């Protein structure tokens, strides 16, 4: 698969996963870009041992996890709030609420649910995060339950 093709197919998927992790447009765009930089650099070494999608999502997930170093350098409180608000106006409130709830989950749960919502098979999710299939299934079930509860309060 050529890089341009991968880029077109996976950009929005990778962006959404990053968005689920940080719930910040510019930051998510940065992580997505970093992910594609790595994909571009590593693509010649890709051996088809796993599906290309799994490989890409692994890189994206790990890039998200690596944000800790950045988080420590630039605390969220220092970011201008106005910019975020203007972007948020165009997006449906329920969508914003979902992404907000996901970004508030523990880090690995954010990745697991983002991958699940991105229609990645549970077997693949388990391979991406390094959990057993059973654990992944249980985790997904619990996260969905938590989200559903939050939405119940939101709707009423």
């Amino acid at each position, binding site marked *: 698969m050529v890089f341009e093709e991968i880029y077109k197919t996976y950009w929005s998927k990778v962006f959404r996963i990053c968005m689920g992790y940080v719930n910040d447009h510019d930051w998510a765009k940065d992580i997505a*870009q970093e992910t594609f930089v790595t994909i571009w650099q590593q693509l010649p070494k890709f051996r088809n041992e796993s599906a290309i999608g799994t490989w890409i999502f692994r890189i994206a997930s790990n890039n998200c*996890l690596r944000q800790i*170093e950045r988080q420590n350098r630039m605390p969220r409180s220092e970011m201008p709030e106005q910019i975020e608000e203007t972007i948020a106006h165009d997006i449906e409130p329920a969508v914003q609420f979902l992404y907000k709830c996901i970004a508030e989950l523990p880090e690995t749960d954010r990745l697991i649910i*983002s991958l699940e919502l*991105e229609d990645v098979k549970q077997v693949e999710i388990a391979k991406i995060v390094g959990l057993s299939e059973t654990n992944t299934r249980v985790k997904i079930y619990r996260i969905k339950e938590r989200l559903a509860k939050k939405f119940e309060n939101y*709707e009423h």
Partner: protein
Amino acid sequence: MSTEIDFKSLWNKQPATDMPDTKEIFAKADKLKRKTRCTLIGLNLSLIATSIIVVYVGLNIDHVKLTTKIGMALMVIGMISYLVVYNQIIPIVFKTEVESNSHDYLNKLIRIKRKEDFINKVMINIYFTLLSAGLLLYMLQFAARMSTAWAAWYYILTFGWMAFAWFYLRPRGIRRKQKFLNEVIERLEQINGQLEAE
């Protein structure tokens, strides 16, 4: 209660930000590579240049004393050993295998950060000790040629600077880096714990 389908359709409604041009991606990759290379080359060049100047000046004075030679050697050893260690750690930091699963990746990151922490503590001490001792011995011969007043000034300034570097700059540099590294390690361990808790 909201269903799974609701979540998926809501999830997909998130508008993806405009796809940056592939040129932007390539430019970013290039910038990253250049930045790493520049930092490496910059530090290497400045320390190697300093070593060369120290040796050049040392060898070009008449009747080089043993203290000057030892001082010269200590300073050069200090700078070169710092470079050797630094040049080894940088590629590891930038070439972490991003393709492993998150659990393994986090473990690798933790290991790298611990190594960085160790090098930070040990290497800065070695570097400062060798450089200070070396400088002191190296300058003895030059100071001996000065008048008493100048030599006194020279010793006050040199010792003053060394004390400042040793008691203020060195611990501050170590503390700052260590605080950052410890925080990162702690957070990484916490996240890794999320995968081990079940």
